[in-house]
């Protein structure tokens, strides 16, 4: 699998496992949180990673940001071998990357003022003079809808939505080409989610650097609104990936179909009834043999219990891991995106 032209971030065969339960003579077990994950983020576009909690999406974010070292795999960013960079060079390159975390309360240092928080990336990368930095922070705050009066306040004086705006301003301070959005609206009140999402979309359009987004989420309604492509994760594996509209209109993997059907407020009750699948996701600590999804899968066959499906790639660029993919419904045309 080679990265198509225009790819900014390319992830290949990423693995990360964590040890659990060891000590006092019992052997530690390795649990694969991320298993053989590959995806591409095109410049200026958005790729969404969706999955239940425990599916490894936030671990992938931390691996891509190099807050964690992967056990195996390759990450290339802007043509650079992102994992092989020496520490100092990596820190220089990090200017091109921003991040927004889920919890705006804990992702801003409570002891720093808004100006200190938003200007820190500028300071770290020695961008501008003190007065230029201050000007830039004021512009950034205006861009995320906060008044200049916010400069000298601390995060504690703001609401959750406002704090997330501060975090977004920080993420965009160095005009990055790539921003990791790790569940950026999940911790916000429903009433401000749409505002913050629209802000993120407007900023992607309106910022000169046109940042690409890696959008991590579990809310399919949100993902549908923001992402050109979507990758569905199940227990650390990408089970299906493709253009968002096609993937939502005609899921290939039964797990994607299950996720779509179990969205609250979705009107097609027939599909919900048909798709209601008993069971919790299997734990990554005790993976079943064969396809990891087979215990919950409505269309599982005997071979699904024995063998793990390899990846099927369709000519349209969609890919999935399933022996018994959902039938093409035929009521969409691949060109309708």
């Amino acid at each position: 699998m080679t990265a198509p032209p225009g790819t900014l971030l390319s992830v290949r065969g990423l693995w990360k496992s964590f040890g659990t339960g060891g000590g006092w003579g019992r052997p530690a077990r390795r649990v694969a949180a991320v298993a053989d994950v590959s995806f591409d983020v095109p410049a200026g576009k958005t790729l969404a990673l969706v999955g239940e909690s425990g599916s490894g999406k936030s671990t992938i974010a931390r691996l891509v940001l190099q807050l964690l070292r992967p056990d195996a795999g390759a990450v290339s960013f802007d043509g650079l071998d992102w994992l092989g960079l020496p520490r100092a060079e990596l820190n220089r390159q990090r200017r091109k990357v921003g991040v927004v975390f889920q919890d705006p309360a804990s992702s801003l240092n409570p002891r720093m003022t808004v100006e200190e928080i938003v200007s820190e990336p500028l300071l770290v990368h020695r961008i501008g003079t003190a007065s230029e930095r201050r000007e830039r922070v004021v512009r950034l705050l205006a861009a995320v809808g906060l008044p200049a009066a916010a400069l000298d306040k601390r995060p504690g004086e703001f609401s959750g939505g406002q704090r997330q705006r501060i975090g977004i301003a920080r993420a965009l301070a160095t005009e990055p080409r790539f921003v990791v959005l790790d569940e950026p609206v999940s911790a916000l009140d429903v009433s401000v989610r749409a505002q913050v999402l629209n802000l993120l979309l407007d900023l992607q359009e309106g910022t000169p650097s046109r940042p690409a987004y890696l959008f991590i989420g579990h809310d399919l309604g949100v993902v549908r609104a923001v992402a050109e492509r979507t990758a569905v994760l199940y227990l650390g594996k990408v089970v299906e990936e493709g253009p968002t509209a096609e993937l939502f209109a005609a899921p290939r993997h039964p797990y994607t179909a299950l996720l779509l059907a179990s969205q609250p407020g979705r009107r097609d009750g027939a599909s919900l009834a048909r798709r209601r699948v008993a069971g919790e996701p299997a734990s990554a600590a005790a993976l079943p043999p064969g396809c990891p999804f087979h215990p919950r899968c409505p269309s599982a066959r005997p071979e699904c219990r024995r063998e793990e499906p390899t990846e099927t790639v369709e000519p349209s660029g969609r890919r999935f891991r399933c022996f018994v993919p959902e039938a093409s419904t035929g009521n969409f045309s691949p060109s309708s995106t």
Partner: protein
Amino acid sequence: MRTTPRTRAAPAAALLLLFPLVALLAPLLAHGPSGGPGGLRAPIPWDPGEPDLDARLRPPGADHWLGTDDLGRDVLARLVHGARVSTGVGLLAAALSIAVGALAGALAGVAGGATDRGVLFLVEVVQAFPPLVLVAAGAAFFPPAAATIAVLVAATSWPDSARLVRAQARRLVRAPFVDAARAGGASATRILFRHVLPGALAPALATAPYVLGAAVLTEAGLSFLGLGTPPPAPSWGRALADARESLGSAWWCAAAPAAALFLFVLSARRLGDALSGRGRG
């Protein structure tokens, strides 16, 4: 009445503040007719170091409010100037102890791994020795001076603040705002000093009064044993040692420095209790 740490700390802090204040003003408060700055008359018109063999062991009275010692020196004047020794040693020891402890603890908490194990090993080695033995051994090796005692007390007391700061630092270094700073390219030094240390310092600062109290007691103890601040500095500990001979007849020579020590250490410990939320009422 609901008590907050602030209201509980206030009386102890006020009493404790008296000592550095007296120490600072000592040259104005007590000096002989010739020795004062600016030619002002002192409220205590006696030089702390000037012996007066005609006025030995006078009981407290109108001339000498707290009496005189075995060399005829004014006990109150020596008490006031002795506050300089105790406060100096105490504050220097507390500042050194917290600076070293906080730095070592934060470094261990942020770096983890071998650095963390190394710091913990040092902490345990230091804490495994009785502090007075370490200090007394050190005092025998190094030239006797107030600064030496402060350094020795700091060298034995930093593990407490190191442990406290390490625990906080381990918690803080996992906070998402530290991840955000790292992902933004911030160096390890910047994360240590900008993001972790400021938030991890509070519990270490709350131990400052304890270190202060311990340092004041240690200085007095060493001076009592003759290992402390050398003459002519009017140390309370040596005043106690000198007062032993005449304890039966001239109780004031021992009572005054003992009371000062008692109040200093008590108010320091009470403040420490209030700051760290221990002890109520």
